[in-house]
């Protein structure tokens, strides 16, 4: 991956983009394709998935059979570099010692950020999801509607490549023809779940994931994505031709050397670099946005992690896409006499209304899946199906006791055996050894299913982050202190998830693990699902929001935040696709304003 040393930067750029993940990658892609000169700064090291991805390595070729450790929380072969809920030398703190009020902050220090390992689940927010306050009086409406973002969802799906189907379900938007790639066939356990949950009124449908189930149509898509830009079409067509279709093996969390799934490093950055308009400096830990005497952003200051030198770079526009919490941290650390509370913070809302996804899980064992005839169930390296939220009407009528929905992701199948290969069997057989144990292992392998709910959290006053008054990281930069609280809406939702999982497992003739009726024990800690958004929320009123509908800060017009920070609600739909669509829309606006001379 070509990139430059920090000493080789240009005197001034059109735009500096801080961060190289979904938001930063999309922003840099859109801007450079339209001719803007962009400098991307990434806090982590350079990373090349083509050379560094362990594609077919088996767990017995890794230390500890690939089991998770503090060094590699998602297991040895997970693509994450220098990342996890703890990053050495880069702490954060929590305001409360109450275990129920902890926030877990995941970071990855690598080019492409967490897009290298993410689950690739790419769901559109629906019309309700942009107007939640109007619908139930809670939280905030977005200053945009589904229709405003729909064209950008279309373009993002075409660009990154998303498999899935159109089911015509409530608040679960269909994509126009030509946007989606065909969904993969369902696995045995997925088919069984689909058949048995019908009687419960629970829909099991193809999920949408950013994986190329077939090769992208490089002849027609570029003209749809960049209708008036022949050069961009040519560059994108070449980039699409370099991506292979999925070969139906290996876990997407490892990344993909053949570029068959979306990660910023294989999809956004190669064409952006091919324009000649992008410089990338890695190991650049941004401390603050610099401003001039009129309060306009002039660039950023950062620490070169290799030389430990503090450097500044200049641009006409600064875009933060460092992850929602990291962007908050940069803004709060950008203090000056003019902005004593940090930059873009006249509302006092920078760091407020942070949200994660509500998560709870339950496993079960399904006798119908025992002794399954041997066959390959690897599939697309992740989920093929899911259950979209199905109780909109009951919820809207006030029958559920919690205000927002969830979807269910579930895993089944004859996955590559690792450390958990026979776990849970003692619970069925009572425990044995020898030839009987080997026979049992064959019988029960692939008969366990895990169900995970992913639900909407409503923003609240008790969930926010701020600068810790004393703690600094190893670079001397003040760190974040988190405050967290789930409301009853979330814990009741988690309890409902648990009840539903039992119903699904029993409908399949299975036996569920022990559910939690209250939800308080089952709900995962804040940040654990790694869908943190908010902190620089968008709105229509400068007093009640940090950015406008274009992710442009109200206070500093040449400063934008295009990660998940602008989310003012966090629908159950996984945020990445919306981050990309929103970043694209904001970048189009940025370009237009720059052309008009307004920035």
């Amino acid at each position: 991956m070509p990139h430059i040393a920090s000493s080789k930067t240009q005197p001034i750029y059109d735009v500096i983009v801080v961060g190289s993940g979904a938001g930063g990658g999309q922003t840099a892609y859109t801007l450079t394709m339209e001719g803007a000169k962009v400098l991307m700064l990434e806090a982590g090291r350079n990373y090349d998935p083509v050379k560094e991805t362990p594609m077919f390595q088996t767990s017995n070729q890794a230390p500890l059979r690939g089991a998770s450790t503090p060094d590699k929380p998602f297991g040895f072969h997970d693509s994450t570099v220098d990342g996890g809920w703890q990053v050495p030398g880069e702490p954060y703190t929590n305001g409360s010692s109450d275990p129920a009020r902890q926030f877990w902050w995941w970071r990855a220090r690598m080019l492409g950020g967490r897009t290298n390992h993410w689950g690739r689940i790419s769901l559109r927010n629906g019309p309700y999801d942009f107007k939640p306050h109007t619908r139930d009086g809670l939280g905030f409406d977005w200053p945009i509607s589904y229709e405003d973002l729909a064209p950008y969802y279309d373009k993002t799906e075409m660009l990154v490549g998303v498999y899935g189907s159109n089911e015509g379900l409530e608040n679960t938007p269909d994509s126009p023809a030509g946007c989606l790639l065909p969904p993969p066939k369902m696995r045995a356990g997925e088919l069984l779940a689909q058949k048995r949950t019908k009687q419960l009124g629970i829909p099991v449908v193809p999920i949408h994931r950013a994986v190329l189930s077939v090769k992208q149509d490089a002849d027609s898509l570029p003209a749809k994505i960049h209708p008036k830009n022949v050069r961009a079409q040519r560059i994108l067509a070449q980039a699409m031709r370099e991506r292979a279709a999925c070969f139906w093996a290996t876990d997407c969390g490892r990344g993909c050397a053949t570029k068959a799934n979306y990660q910023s490093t294989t999809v956004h950055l190669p064409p952006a670099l091919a324009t000649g308009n992008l410089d990338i400096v890695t190991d650049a830990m941004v401390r603050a946005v610099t401003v001039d005497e009129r309060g306009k952003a002039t660039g950023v200051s950062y620490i070169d992690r290799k030389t430990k030198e503090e450097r500044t770079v200049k641009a006409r526009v600064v875009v933060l896409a460092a992850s929602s919490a990291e962007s908050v941290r940069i803004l709060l650390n950008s203090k000056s006499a003019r902005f004593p509370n940090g930059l873009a913070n006249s509302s006092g809302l920078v760091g407020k209304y942070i949200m994660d996804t509500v998560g709870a899980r339950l496993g079960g064992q399904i006798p119908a899946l025992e002794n399954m005839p041997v066959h390959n169930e690897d599939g697309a390296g992740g989920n093929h199906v899911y259950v979209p939220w199905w109780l909109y009407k009951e919820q809207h009528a006030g029958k559920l006791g919690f205000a927002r929905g969830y979807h269910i992701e579930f895993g089944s199948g004859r996955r590559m055996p690792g450390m958990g290969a026979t776990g849970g069997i003692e619970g069925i057989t009572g425990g044995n050894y020898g030839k009987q144990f080997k026979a049992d292992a064959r019988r029960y392998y692939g008969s366990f299913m895990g169900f995970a709910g992913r639900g909407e959290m409503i923003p609240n006053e008790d969930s926010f982050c701020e600068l810790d008054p004393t703690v600094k990281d190893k670079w001397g930069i003040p760190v974040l202190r988190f405050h967290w609280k789930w409301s009853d809406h979330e814990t009741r939702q988690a309890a409902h998830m648990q009840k539903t999982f039992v119903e699904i497992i029993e409908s399949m003739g299975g036996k569920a693990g022990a559910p939690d009726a209250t939800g308080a024990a089952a709900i995962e800690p804040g940040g654990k699902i790694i869908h943190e958004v908010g902190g620089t929320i968008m709105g229509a009123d400068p007093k009640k929001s940090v950015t406008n509908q274009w992710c442009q800060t109200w206070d500093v017009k040449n400063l934008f935040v295009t990660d998940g920070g602008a989310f003012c609600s966090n629908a159950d739909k996984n945020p990445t696709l919306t981050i990309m669509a929103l970043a694209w829309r904001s970048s189009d606006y940025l370009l237009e304003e720059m052309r008009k001379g307004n920035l």
Partner: protein
Amino acid sequence: MDRRSAIKWMLSAAASVAIMDRAAIAAEGGATASVGYGTDPDLVKIYKPGDVWALTLTDGQRRAATALCDAIIPADDKSPAASKVGVPDFIDEWVSAPYPGHSGDKRTVVEGLAWLDAEAQKRFGNDFADLVLRQKNAICDDICSFAKAKPEFKKAAQFFRKFRDLTAGGFYSTPEGMKDIGYVGNVPTVNFDGPTPEALKHLGLA
């Protein structure tokens, strides 16, 4: 996660082992081990036990561990015994690892192996590794089920459960173990065809 691949962990109830380990990591504040493989290891490289940190079991412990591995996973017509595919090396790697949780597993395993030899001496006047199959089975029968174990064998049954999880994890992650259990993936294919007709028939979905 879901990672998410993040939902890797929930793909079977079996993954509860890993989840508990992660909870232990959190409880211990996520301190990174100074002598582990670090946060940026070479992922493409092929590793074997002992490559990153030293193996620490004594010869006597290895001998007992090898015998117990093979009592749990003996050779049959489908696959070799656990010791034939390097499982004792893996168990040594596991209990010697510098990460949180592994020192507790080492205590469980070392104490359990010592108990095993002492029990073998008490009953049959020999180390566990030197017993004949019938004698080994007599001891394993008493400790292979935590639920059914008599009070005096509960602690040994806890050890046995841990040791069986390690043995099975070590074994079924090898090519021989994968073939035995019926995992036939990790090969590139042009199409994903879903369940075979036989599998659909098995499910009553044909």
